[in-house]
């Protein structure tokens, strides 16, 4: 129970929160964000349930570091590798940002698989969450495509030949394969257009698709709620253990002040 505040303190708080109130009154955004962040989840969630948020965090890291890298990267057959060299060795902290982007890409993919494994093993893909599983699969494929297109950008021998092989694997798909390969290359042979095409896909098209899919994914997570682990009574078909009735207040109608000096940490969290 909050302590009664002095009038001066209340006025100060009101002033400090005025911008938020202004925003809330005109958009409802503050309430929306609060609803998103402080929504109820089952009591028996555990650390495995954080893999999705971890994946999202990894994606956001890729987004930020990628935007910074794009400020220095020059897509062109003669300039691409030189600019990577420049980022790595000359630009202040370039090695760090590029390293975060490069290794973060692997982290993102690995976390996607771990998150997928958690959802599978917990049976969290079942009704009514099938659609979110499907969106997740699309996210996985799109994320892998993001990795594929990014791999060519350093334009060294490894990335060049890896992309040659990857494009030619696409080329072996029945019937459409040869056309798919031409589409990816931007022509019959790998050329300057291939690099700029992959760059455009990597930093505009595919991230856009990822952001859209993630938005849908999160919308469904919020709408459908987080599922309990399979060992929970609730997930086993029960209604969950009945919540113990809170003891009736000793003096109904009376506000019980918190004793002075009592720690906030001692309070039960909701």
């Amino acid at each position: 129970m909050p302590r009664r505040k002095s009038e001066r303190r209340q006025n100060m708080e009101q002033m400090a929160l005025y911008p938020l109130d202004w925003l809330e009154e005109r958009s409802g955004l503050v309430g929306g964000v609060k609803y998103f962040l402080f929504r109820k989840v089952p009591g028996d969630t555990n650390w495995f349930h954080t893999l999705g948020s971890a994946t999202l965090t990894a994606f956001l890291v890729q987004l930020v570091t990628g935007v910074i890298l794009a400020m220095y990267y020059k897509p062109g057959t003669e300039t691409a590798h030189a600019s990577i060299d420049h980022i790595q060795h000359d630009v202040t902290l370039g090695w760090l940002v590029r390293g975060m982007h490069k290794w973060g890409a692997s982290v993102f993919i690995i976390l996607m698989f771990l998150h997928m494994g958690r959802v599978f093993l917990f049976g969290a893909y079942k009704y009514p969450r099938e659609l979110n599983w499907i969106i997740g699969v699309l996210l996985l494929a799109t994320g892998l495509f993001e990795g594929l297109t990014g791999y060519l950008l350093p334009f060294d021998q490894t990335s060049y030949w890896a992309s040659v092989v990857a494009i030619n694997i696409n080329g072996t798909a029945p019937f459409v394969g040869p056309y798919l390969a031409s589409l990816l290359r931007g022509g019959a042979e790998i050329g300057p257009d291939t690099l700029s095409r992959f760059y455009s896909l990597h930093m505009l098209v595919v991230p856009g698709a990822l952001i859209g899919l993630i938005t849908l994914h999160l919308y469904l997570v919020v709408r459908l709620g987080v599922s309990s682990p399979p060992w929970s009574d609730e997930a086993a078909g029960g209604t969950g253990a009945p919540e113990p009735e809170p003891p009736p207040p000793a003096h109904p109608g009376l506000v019980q002040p918190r004793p002075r000096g009592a720690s906030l940490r001692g309070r039960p969290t909701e």
Partner: protein
Amino acid sequence: MERHQPPPSLWPVGFAVGIVCLLVGLVVSWPAAAVGAGLAAVFGFLWARDVVGGRAAELPPEAAEEPVPGASAVPAEPGERYPRNVFLEGATLGLGAVVGVVVALPAIGFAVLPAFLKQKQHEVDLGPITDFPEGQFMVATFIRDPSLGDITRRTAYIRNNGLLNGVPSFTCISNRCAHLGCPVQPGGPVFDNKAQTVKTANGDVTLVPVLPAAGFICPCHGGSYDQEGSRIAGPPVRGLDRYEFLIRNGHLVLGDLYSVVKVTGTGAQAKITKVELHGPGQHADGPESWLYPLQPPH
């Protein structure tokens, strides 16, 4: 009252003829395809009109106007047969769709079509044929399209086979592996100390003598080929591609690439079964080649 089934109609037949004409036209000529598309559209529309509602209008009027008991007592507003808001709704959606298509089509075409149009291979001048000793394989490295620069650097294994019926014969094997397109390496010593650079119309061409005693081997996944480029082992689905060649003013000139299904014999006597250039990993003969019936323009 039982509703009559629509009588037999010729519209579906016309529609089918249109579709056939369209498909044949796609192969034969664009005007025929356009006529087919037009026929299909017209007959399809007539057919759809027949099926969906054309007959309903022929119901006896009294059947349509029978009062339904319990129907809403609110009389329809006079003159409101097609409400204004329905029209505006449709117009907004329809115009939006038209604008969307008009904007999207050129954009998509711009993104997709250049990959398939104006694709052409470039002739490459490899210099005087006297630089190619008879019976000696040379690693020739050249820029295929100088306007695009280093990205079009390609390598071919060239062997002068001597004269065949008084005409020079060359074996011009592409180094692109028929598995997934990695560069195959010669299985034998490369005499870098005897490398020479020839200045040609295509810029500098590097020629290095090589002795591919064990044929050609791919470092990526272990595909191996004999000296004629025929597959010996590993994952490749066919032999190595070859360049067409011609002799112009005493210079060896490489032309288009083609895929090879089978080589019998060696050197100048080799009989080569050639097919249109296929991408790496795509079967060019046997039942599996049915999976790749059409190749995009190279």
